[in-house]
């Protein structure tokens, strides 16, 4: 399976990655090679094998519903580029 440069460019856009044309070409070649490997893996007969959602053979632990995280706004906003009235400021978003 070949992942063409157009697809690479659109995936890069969705992931907010800035790739040059050369990098798009390079990624297209490398990812297509990986897809080849995946095609090969998909030829394996997995009939009767339960699909796996996680590589660890473990179950999710659950947490009791108790508040233990208290307000740490000052520390958490210490490295934010811009803050006002307790809000994080970001470049204007237009709906």
């Amino acid at each position: 399976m070949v992942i063409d440069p157009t697809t690479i460019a659109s995936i890069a856009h969705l992931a907010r990655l800035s790739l040059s044309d050369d990098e798009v070409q390079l990624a297209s070649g490398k990812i297509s090679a990986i897809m080849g490997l995946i095609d090969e893996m998909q030829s394996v007969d997995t009939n009767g094998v339960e699909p796996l959602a996680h590589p660890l053979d473990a179950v999710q632990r659950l947490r009791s519903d108790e508040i233990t995280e208290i307000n740490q706004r000052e520390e958490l906003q210490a490295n934010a580029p811009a803050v006002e009235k307790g809000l994080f400021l970001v470049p204007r978003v237009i709906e």
Partner: protein
Amino acid sequence: MEWETVIGLEVHVQLATKTKIFSAASTAFGAEANTQACAIDLGLPGTLPVVNEEAINMAIKLGFGINAEINKINVFERKNYFYPDLPKGYQTTQLAKPIVGAGHMDIALEDGTVHTVRIHHAHLEEDAGKSLHEDFHGMTGIDLNRAGTPLIEVVTEPDMRSAKQAVAFARKLHAIVTTLGICDGEMSQGSMRFDVNVSVRPKGQTTLGTRTETKNLNSFRFMERAINKEVQRQIEQIEDGFEIVQETRLYNGDTDEARSMRTKEEANDYRYFPCPDLLPVIIEESRLEKLRAEMPEMPEVRKARFINELGLSDYDAEILSAEAATANYFETVVQSGGDAKLAANWVMGELAKTLNQNDLTIKNCPVSAQVLGGLIARIKDNTLSGKIAKQVFEALWQGEGATADEVIEKKGLKQVTDTGAIEAIVDEVLAANPAQVEQYLAADEAKRGKMVGFFVGQIMKASKGKANPGMVNQLLKQKLG
């Protein structure tokens, strides 16, 4: 041409947990910005989400409430997109293996028939933060207190055929989640939000028309208006020869305006994949059994009991069972007042009216159910007339006494049921109005009923409303022949 409307709903129900779905920060409403957003909610590197057990329990209860299968293995996935109020760059949600599978809900329609709406599934996910678009020097402010608040999203099949049906479904779901205690039901605070998928097709056609989705409606009234408006728009488009474009739309309830937000071509590719930070959630049979035992009486069952055991009308029973807080209040009033019909009239009448006028809900009602029950007991035993009872209620509302008895005592409002005393007033009134008595006696039987109202009014006035109206009527009948 005759058109048929097809509606499917996606409902976001905010779960009433104390903490977030993946972190132990508080979910309380109305806190100062970013004081309830911890490192996990902010998506800082190196943090690990851990699932809140209560969110799982509440989702299971919802599943029971909508007659659905519970998926004993369910998986959290990442839905990837960029928006400033989603600091991680993905929303943790469920897709392929949601916690609640297919179910159904029955809704009562206006014509008395029952309509079944199939539920496709319901999944757990986290809410995003809030963007504040007021002017911060050309920037947008972000409050992440809401980020990570647990939501269960209920997705229906396209089984509703009118805005009214969609609203009936929404109200029923509201009744179920508040009865289960898994959501506070405060629509104005966004505790329940509706996305409506609407399409139209010529009546009789079986394939579906192209649909649009109107997002984030937070009141039943707005939902009904938004649907009707969209149906109208689609029909006009088609009749004018245009095609419906599949798109996401926004509706502004304050201005009653709708507009397109984005079309399908611009729609995101969310690139879902299982969240590597979270393991599959396995639900043991023992947990299901424990939760099943905790299930409260559901609104439908309660409604039937109000009709069969308390003798309420279908209409009264529907209103009183729709919200858990109202139903509980009503039942306490019945217990302490001893009369279901009177209790129903007062809870739906004077109480609802006064709450409305003061912009309060039954949860913060200043007159407790026991106290209102005490007032009703005094109507029932003829200590109070209905009219005076309203005065007593007013006094109780103003805090002029702790119980109805105390107010009655303090203000001397006890109804006069002494025949001699009432008779004296009746005689007085008849003697003072000889002309009206003459007119009454000369009138036809048919007209007398209306005329007797004049005397009753005068007598009630003379007794300051304290005379028992039943006895007044009886005495008048005797004396006027």
